[in-house]
């Protein structure tokens, strides 16, 4: 859905930033298209009103220099009880609470093995082996991590406990999900258990957003 089309009806829950490059448009935008998703050119963030939407989705192809210039807008969006999903490698401090990406020194393919921590609805039914391996080859999912802020909920780790996916409910008045790999919303391939992630992530956002709004009403 385009920004113009959304004005006519109910605002889609998700705004996916289109980084404008070939891979981003294909991998992050086309794969997640739906009535609940609005795809917005990154540079339109300058004057686009995000308020009608619940969750901003940003991939690793994005211009982080631009987002660093817009970091106050991002913080303000989250402080209004909104959500943000970032999948990528952070090299500038524009994401509240987040630290810069730390690449993992790789000595063997086993250094890429992914573990699911506890049980979380986003990864329910997902086989950790399917996260680690694609046709028997590892390394596609995550090749490093972002050190977590205090009180973050860690969902996935690499073998030495490096947190590759975490939820942060404390750095802002909203909720962030930070992942050091490809756009998590784009995992929709039904031939693999990782294909569950996209839908389950959307369902989790719905529930999390409902809880944030309920909490704000009682404050």
């Amino acid at each position, binding site marked *: 859905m385009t920004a113009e089309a959304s004005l006519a009806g109910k605002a889609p829950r998700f705004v996916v930033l289109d980084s404008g490059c*070939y891979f981003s448009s294909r991998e992050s935008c086309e794969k997640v298209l739906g009535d609940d998703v609005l795809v917005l050119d990154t*540079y339109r963030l300058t004057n686009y009103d995000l308020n009608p939407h619940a969750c901003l989705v940003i991939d690793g192809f*994005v*211009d*982080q*220099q*631009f987002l660093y210039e817009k970091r106050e807008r991002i913080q303000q969006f989250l402080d209004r009880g909104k959500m943000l999903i970032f999948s990528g490698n952070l090299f500038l401090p524009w994401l509240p609470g987040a630290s810069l*990406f730390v690449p993992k020194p790789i000595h063997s393919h086993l250094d890429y093995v992914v573990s699911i921590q506890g049980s979380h609805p986003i990864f329910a039914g997902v086989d950790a082996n399917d996260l680690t391996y694609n*046709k028997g080859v590892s390394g596609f999912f995550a090749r490093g991590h972002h050190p977590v802020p205090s009180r973050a909920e860690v969902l996935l780790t690499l073998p030495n406990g490096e947190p590759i996916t975490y939820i942060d409910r404390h750095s802002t008045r909203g909720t962030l999900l930070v992942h050091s790999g490809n756009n998590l919303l784009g995992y929709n391939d039904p031939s693999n258990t990782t294909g569950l992630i996209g839908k389950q992530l959307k369902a989790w956002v719905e529930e999390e957003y409902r809880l944030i709004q309920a909490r704000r009403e009682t404050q």
Partner: protein
Amino acid sequence: MRKIAVIYGGNAHQHRTFYETKYRRYCQELIYLPELHRMSLDDYDVVLIPSQLHQRLLMESQSKLIDFVQRGGVLAGLGAQPTHLLPGHGWEFRPTNFWWWLDRDASSGLVANKPDHDLFNYITLEDATWHYHGVFHPPAGVDCIINVEGGGTILYVDQLTTSGTLILTTLDPEYHYGSYFMPATERFLNGFLPWLAGGKLHYHR
């Protein structure tokens, strides 16, 4: 040494690649893409256009880039080029086979078409071997350096289509190196950038 300007999109993989000391030394300037429209290219010999740049912003500076090459400059483009930003490449999309190397009797299908080209004093064919997202069909007479068995080229030098030099490859080494993935891409960049800065671009038979 030729003066190289790199168009820089502010993304993580380009940041990692072009700020890496061993590569940064070959890059006179990193031009931030949103500022390209008001920057002069007059001081540079080579403009390097990496893959995975914001296509609309890049197309807005198309005439500036074409003017640069028509004045005798060298334009080098990395990665898939499905747009018509640069002339004459005859891009053909090919479904990417990421897995050719897992097959029995694995062959990438790549061929050194001009094995005595100066580029091969800087890289080997293996350094250019990972996967490709399509092939080019450039005009007859240009120097196709790495071809694909069965038709098409993935790296060529064109000094016929414009008054300058177009160097185009479907390979996207800066994306993979910058994403901490695929060691061959580092070896490719270790040779390609020094060649771009100081090697012989023109092929002498």
